[in-house]
């Protein structure tokens, strides 16, 4: 640094010319290139490409695989663009408000499409044409999103099951059937495994992006109370949360970092875990013989299970309408549905026989899903219906209960009373009817009893 001044003066000319060169280059790159940027979704393939904006299959590999499925099974070119749900909502809303819609097809979970219902075209005609496909009545009811006309066409569905590494079977208590677990048996097993392995080997997706609130909403509470909202703070719910507290004691504490259980399962850090089928499928991918997939446990009021439905919708005044409709019809074809299952572990919404040559992990899941839906006492629960943008807040209330009761050790009843108050504040504002498994009666608004 001591000889900096002469150095500096010698270099100043070349530095200036370097800067000028740099500026020139910078000038030429953005402004001499006639295009307004490079295409990143395949939409530039030409006019007639269906721009498909979706919240599903965001992970790199899933997206690549799904693009292959679309390319193979649809006879229209589709540019698949997967985004974060927040960006999805604001993109659709802004485009509608500005009166300039730049998408042709929208795909999302029921809970993501429902709040956008005003921006979506009615699809009753398409559903009538597809009536032979065998959509179930429950799913068709969902597509009405609280109104009288259908706003989306069912696209695919998923649920949650329990993945079991066969190593954990050695601690399975006598008299407990792994394919017909009860919540009691599940807890005994978790405790025995914790003792046997010297560390907790059961896991929960209780991380920041984990889906553990769905466990309380769709599995634990329905199984113990028979409801989700109306029974939120009754004595059965207290029992359910007391149970959850015990289960948490036998669960790996690192669970608060787990978003998708397939990774800790594949690492062997966790041996038994409940999660979304698409978030479990990676665990047994390499060695399906060492794994089991079993239905979620059943409780005193039945085997509560949650169904996740995704749909495809047409934005009002969207681009390429004709081809987009063609794409929707293509998506409802059994071959497309099966290919989606094969590649990304989302299940068909249409009536179709599953092929026998599914990959190991998916075959395991398919069997578990079927067992779960058809078992005696199966109790269907839906993710909140008609809450729109408030859905996140309702989910947060279930997460808060977990936080308070299991992590902070608060007393159960006061916590539930407290959270019920907040839940009712949200629900009273919305005035929506209840959804399964709570008693559904149109016109009556849902709230915690």
């Amino acid at each position, binding site marked *: 640094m001591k000889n900096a001044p002469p150095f500096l003066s010698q270099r100043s000319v070349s530095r200036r010319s370097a800067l000028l060169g740099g500026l020139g280059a910078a000038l030429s790159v953005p402004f001499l290139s006639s295009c307004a940027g490079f295409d990143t979704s395949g939409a530039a393939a030409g006019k007639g490409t269906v721009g498909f904006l979706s919240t599903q299959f965001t992970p790199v590999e899933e997206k690549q695989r799904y693009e292959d499925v679309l390319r193979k099974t649809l006879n229209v070119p589709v540019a698949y663009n997967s985004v974060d749900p927040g960006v999805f909502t604001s*993109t659709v809303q802004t485009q509608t408000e500005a009166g300039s819609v730049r998408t042709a097809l929208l795909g999302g979970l029921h809970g993501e499409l429902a709040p956008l219902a005003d921006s979506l075209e009615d699809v009753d005609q398409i559903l009538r044409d597809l009536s032979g496909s065998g959509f179930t009545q429950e799913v068709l009811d969902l597509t009405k999103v609280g109104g009288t006309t259908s706003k989306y066409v069912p696209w695919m569905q998923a649920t949650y099951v329990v993945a079991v590494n066969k190593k954990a079977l050695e601690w399975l208590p006598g008299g407990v059937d792994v394919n017909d677990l009860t919540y009691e048996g599940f807890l005994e097993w978790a405790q025995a495994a914790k003792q046997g392995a010297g560390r907790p080997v059961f896991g929960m997706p209780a991380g920041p992006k984990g889906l553990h609130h769905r466990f309380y909403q769709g599995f634990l509470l329905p199984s113990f109370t028979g409801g989700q909202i109306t029974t939120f703070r009754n004595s059965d719910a207290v029992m359910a949360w007391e149970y959850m507290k015990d289960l948490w004691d036998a669960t790996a504490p690192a669970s608060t970092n787990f978003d998708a259980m397939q990774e800790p399962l594949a690492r062997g850090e966790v041996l038994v875990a409940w999660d979304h089928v698409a978030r479990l499928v990676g665990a047994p991918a390499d060695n399906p013989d060492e794994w089991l997939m079993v239905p979620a446990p059943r409780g005193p009021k039945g085997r509560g299970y949650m169904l996740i439905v995704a749909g495809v919708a047409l934005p009002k005044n969207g681009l390429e309408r004709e081809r987009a409709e063609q794409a929707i019809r293509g998506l409802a074809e059994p071959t497309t549905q099966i290919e989606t299952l094969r590649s990304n572990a989302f299940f068909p919404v249409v009536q179709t026989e599953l092929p026998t040559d599914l990959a190991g992990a998916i075959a395991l899941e398919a069997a578990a899903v079927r067992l779960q839906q058809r078992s005696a006492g199966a109790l269907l629960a839906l993710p909140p219906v008609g809450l729109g943008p408030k859905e996140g807040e309702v989910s947060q209330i279930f997460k808060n209960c977990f936080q308070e009761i299991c992590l902070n050790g608060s007393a159960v009843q006061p916590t539930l009373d407290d959270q019920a108050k907040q839940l009712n504040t949200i629900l009273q504002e919305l005035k929506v009817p209840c959804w399964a498994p709570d008693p559904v009666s149109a016109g009556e608004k849902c709230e915690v009893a």
Partner: protein
Amino acid sequence: MTTTRIVDTPPARPAVDEAPLKRQRRNRALLQAACILISLFMLVPIYLISLAALSTRESLNEFPLSLLPTNLSFETLRAFLGSTGIIGAFGNSLIVGLGTLLISALIGVPAGYALARFAFPAKEPYQLFLLFTRALPIVVLSVPLARLFLTVDLYDTTYAVILLHTALALPTTILISASVFLSVPIDVEEAARVFGCTPAGAFLKVVLPMALPGLAAASIFTFVMSWNEVLGASILTLDHRTLPAQVLTSLSDSPLAYRFAGGFALVIPSIIFIAFMRRYLTNMWGSTIR
């Protein structure tokens, strides 16, 4: 023998107080140690990301993780770079970064010069007001902007993102360049005028070269800000995304191996840019921070 040796030593030597020298040496050693520590603080995460990005997927599941590159593989990185739109998005990010740099320099440097050289009414409130754009969350800004761009047909172009990023970068560009120009003595500019330079000539030939290091620092802020900005870019574009907007959602849901590969791909270009701008930056401490 011993006596002769004592006699040989110059009598002046014991009189020298070596304490300051030792202190200086110790301070230098401490300084070096501190430099090494700070460098490690920056380099270790980059090393770990590179290591994980270039490892096989299986080796990431091993415990404990090896800290040496034993399982080198370009498979994940190749799969990541090969996925749809990554190369295009990379190009878009570059266009947006350089475009933002250019426009914010074209607007911000003259504004900074004016702030540094001229006194005008409401100068202080103006400086404060400049920071106001940064006080608003990007979501609040970008949703109305998206509507505006939709109506004027700029939506889903890199120009839209350049404009947003320029607006976001201007406050820092203006304030940094103002402080840079303040440190260039006004005397040299006047001297240039005395020797026959036009005002523009004096600025270009005398002030600008002296201010260059500081302006380079400002440009690093601008470029890195634009390179890292996700939310605005993902709301303003659909099929022409920048790299972070294209990959961030997908990465947060992807398996660990991809997150590292993506992180690696995102970090490297800005490191290259900073390494390039560093040549101009190193003199900054001499010229601006006195």
